[in-house]
């Protein structure tokens, strides 16, 4: 019993560590690819590891007050908590102990901690940045929540682990609910705050917004937070629509299945991340009110169409996945 728990905890720690490494690597790859699209050379793909090492090793660290510390603490702790509740490569970790709604609300913990810390810096740019981030959140959550609702109605479950199981046995979400998947991917662009929705951090307008006052270890830990967030957001899409990358049934193939599924999952989140990066590389930035109007118009209409599809299929046609 106790050894089981310890093995489980050790595996979770390993997955969390790998997620952080993947996140940092993805950031590096994104920088390289964006540079190549824009006809620059770009930094090497391991650049973000060097940056992280440098930031964490800095001797001078500056803070404004005790609330300022909330940002790195809740940012890093919270993002690890989300990752622990998110199945990665079919390994469900804690997500048997908490469903999608819990996950949606845990998603707010690091964001809120970050917002508290940056608000406490007293820099007006940070205040404006958080305002934009929250407005953007209200914008993209409208289609995203409707999409999640369609999934929950169609698969008749709120639990991520059950959702993965049903996708494995029936059809992946993207095949069953393609319209919702489209809306979800548009919402994902805003959730990742990539162009055209990088309004909250807009480096040329508000000096990186919420991040403006952080430096040294604070920035280092927040870099880990954003690395984790990349994995969280891409993996959320993969878990919801791409079956979590499960191609081999773990009950049949055992450890091999976990290994293969992990690689498939990695490939899938890479694809999702690349879509976001390609869009990011060629688009200019919306203003925040444009983003709000955009999200509450087209993606919401698409999401509602997806909801209608899910509703008709599950209620009127009686499709039971």
């Amino acid at each position, binding site marked *: 019993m106790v050894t089981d728990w310890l093995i489980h905890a050790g595996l979770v720690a390993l997955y969390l560590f790998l997620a952080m490494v993947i996140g940092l690597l993805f950031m590096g790859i994104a920088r390289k690819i964006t540079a190549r699209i824009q006809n620059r050379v770009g930094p090497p793909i391991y650049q973000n590891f060097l940056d992280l090492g440098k930031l964490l090793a800095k001797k001078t660290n500056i803070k*404004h007050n005790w609330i300022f510390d909330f940002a790195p603490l809740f940012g890093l702790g919270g993002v690890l*908590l989300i990752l622990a509740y998110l199945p990665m490569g079919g390994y469900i970790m804690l997500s048997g102990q908490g469903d999608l709604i819990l996950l949606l609300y845990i998603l707010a913990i690091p964001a809120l901690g970050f917002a508290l810390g940056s608000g406490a810096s007293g820099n007006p740019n940070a205040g404006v940045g958080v305002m934009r981030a929250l407005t953007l959140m209200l914008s993209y959550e409208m289609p995203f929540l409707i999409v999640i609702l369609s999934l929950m109605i169609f698969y008749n479950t709120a639990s991520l682990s059950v959702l993965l199981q049903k996708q494995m046995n029936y059809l992946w979400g993207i095949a069953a609910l393609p319209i919702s998947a489209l809306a979800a991917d548009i919402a994902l662009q805003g959730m990742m705050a990539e162009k055209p929705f990088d309004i909250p951090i807009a480096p040329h307008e508000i000096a990186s917004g919420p991040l403006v006052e952080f430096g040294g270890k604070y920035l280092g830990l927040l870099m880990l937070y954003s690395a984790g967030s990349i994995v969280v957001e891409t993996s959320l899409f993969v878990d919801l629509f791409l079956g979590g990358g499960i191609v081999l049934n773990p009950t049949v193939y055992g450890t091999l299945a976990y290994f293969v599924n992990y690689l498939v999952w990695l490939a899938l989140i890479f694809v999702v991340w690349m879509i976001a990066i390609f869009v990011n590389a060629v688009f200019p930035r919306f203003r925040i*009110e444009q983003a709000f109007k955009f999200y509450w118009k087209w993606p919401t209409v698409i999401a509602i169409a997806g909801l209608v599809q899910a509703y008709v299929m599950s209620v009127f046609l009686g499709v039971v996945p």
Partner: protein
Amino acid sequence: MDALTLFGIFVLLPLVGALVSYFGKKYAPIIAVIFTGISGIFLYLWYGNFGSYTIDIGVKLNLTFDITTWFFMLMMNTVIFSSLLFSVSSKLKRAGGFATLMLLGFAGANGVLLARDFLSLYLFWELMSWSIYLLVLRTSGEYARRYLLFGVLSAYLLIMGIGIIYYYTGSFLYADALSGAIPHAIWPWILTFLILGFGIKMAIVPFHVWAPYAYSSEQPFVAFLSGGLSKLGAFGIFMSMYSIAGISLLQSFGTFRGVSLMGYPFALLGAATAFIGTILAIFQDDIRKLLAYSSIGQLGYVMIGLGLGTPLAIGGAMFHAFNHAFFKSLLFLGAGAVIYRTGKYKISEMGGLGYRMPFTFMFVLFAIFALAGIPLTSGFISKWMLYEAAISRKFVIVAPLMLIASVGAYLYSYRILYGVFLGQLKDEDKNVKEAPGPMLAAMFILMVPLVIFSIVPGWILGWINKILVENGIGKLNYTTFSYSSAIGGANMAVFWIAFILLLIFAMLMFMAKKARVVDQYDNYLAGEAPPSVALHAAHNYYKPLRDTWAPLLKHSIDRAYEKFSKFFAGGFYEIKRIYTGNPQDYAAYLGIAFLAFLLVGWWLLW
């Protein structure tokens, strides 16, 4: 225990306290705290000591002390205790009158909760309602009139419902309503009148317009009004739908996927309330108005749960009412502490107070966690129950409105946190001190249950489950640490252990290097060096969002009512013009009236 003891402790004792504290001068709040404390102690002692007592004094009256009453009394008592404790140090003008009216309201509220007959319900309801009116009147006659208008409307609607029941049954007892004397077709009217009458106290859209004004009165009172008394609306709706009418009667009006058609429209109304209240709260700059609209929105959630009427939904509504009682009164008291120390109401004029009032900030932060539904407090669990109740029955209109309103709650929550407690400290607030001890104690008392019930939700779910079972609604699925629905579930013990372990890990990484503290003006401004410009970016905080909503915000229910009243006032002005002051005109009116009567009488007799 008999009826008199019950009545004595929960109704007469506060009334005596009201009398005593009137003469207490500046000690009045302390006296009132002691009286509420005594009835609170009895409330804790008498848990499980339930009973129902019918008294015949010409008409049959009934007092019942059961788990439902106990649960609501628990909120009521804790909230008024903390509010009065808060008012001990808030130096109110005419504190004697304040404490007296608060205790009168408390006695009325307890009476409403104990009553199981319409006569005493109505009497105590009016006692409560009028003491609120007088308490609002202490701040502003205009606000009080607005409250009074809706208070009277609520009373009329209740009287209509009660009157119809009495007409058919000839008895005031709740229990007699279901005896079969009332025709089936009449029930929808009764229920609509009662639900709307009670719903006005919950500030359900479109009857919410009194709330932002009434909630701008003295904070300790508003904490009790929003946290405690507004729950009487929820209690009343619960009683009329699930105790007086009962679930089988509701189901007999037809169902929509297992939800009564009598309840579903009210769930929709609740969803609209949650959405509208939240959107309006985002744009408020006055902290009291912001909290008022937030309160409207949150009670919309309670309405949704009561309307849907599945065990999970009603359980969620009860739990959310409980959470709301605690976190909203905590927020009002926190706002009260800030207003007490700075004398300002506008969020944009404050800023940086979290560094000067760290404890107030922490308490408010926990309340905000509960409001936003962060799982670190029990606020999450009640929202979870309501969502799962809606989603598991596939309600595609109610669920998205609830979910998006909850995201909107992040926006206004952060407006409070940033505008009041974070950002730059103003020069004139440099010497602001932490709130006085009693205020902190009051806020602490309200914070404790929010955290406890997040770790051990099984305790409170046990009480709620008892309420549901006793009223024949069904039961919840829960253990000490976890809870589940047909489609999902969560375990709070796992959550807390994972959270604490990962937070410790983050802290270890964080503690590795020391940091130097710098001044708030020592920050990056892209080379600009403004000498004395206000750099607290809290003025018109959500301006871009407000601009996009402007075409919709033009239409306001508030203004619609005002136009309505102006129309009538104009009409009355026209009617007034018949008083010309000329005796010949009056003689002519008399002649015309005589002729009219003659004609009508003639026609009637023919």
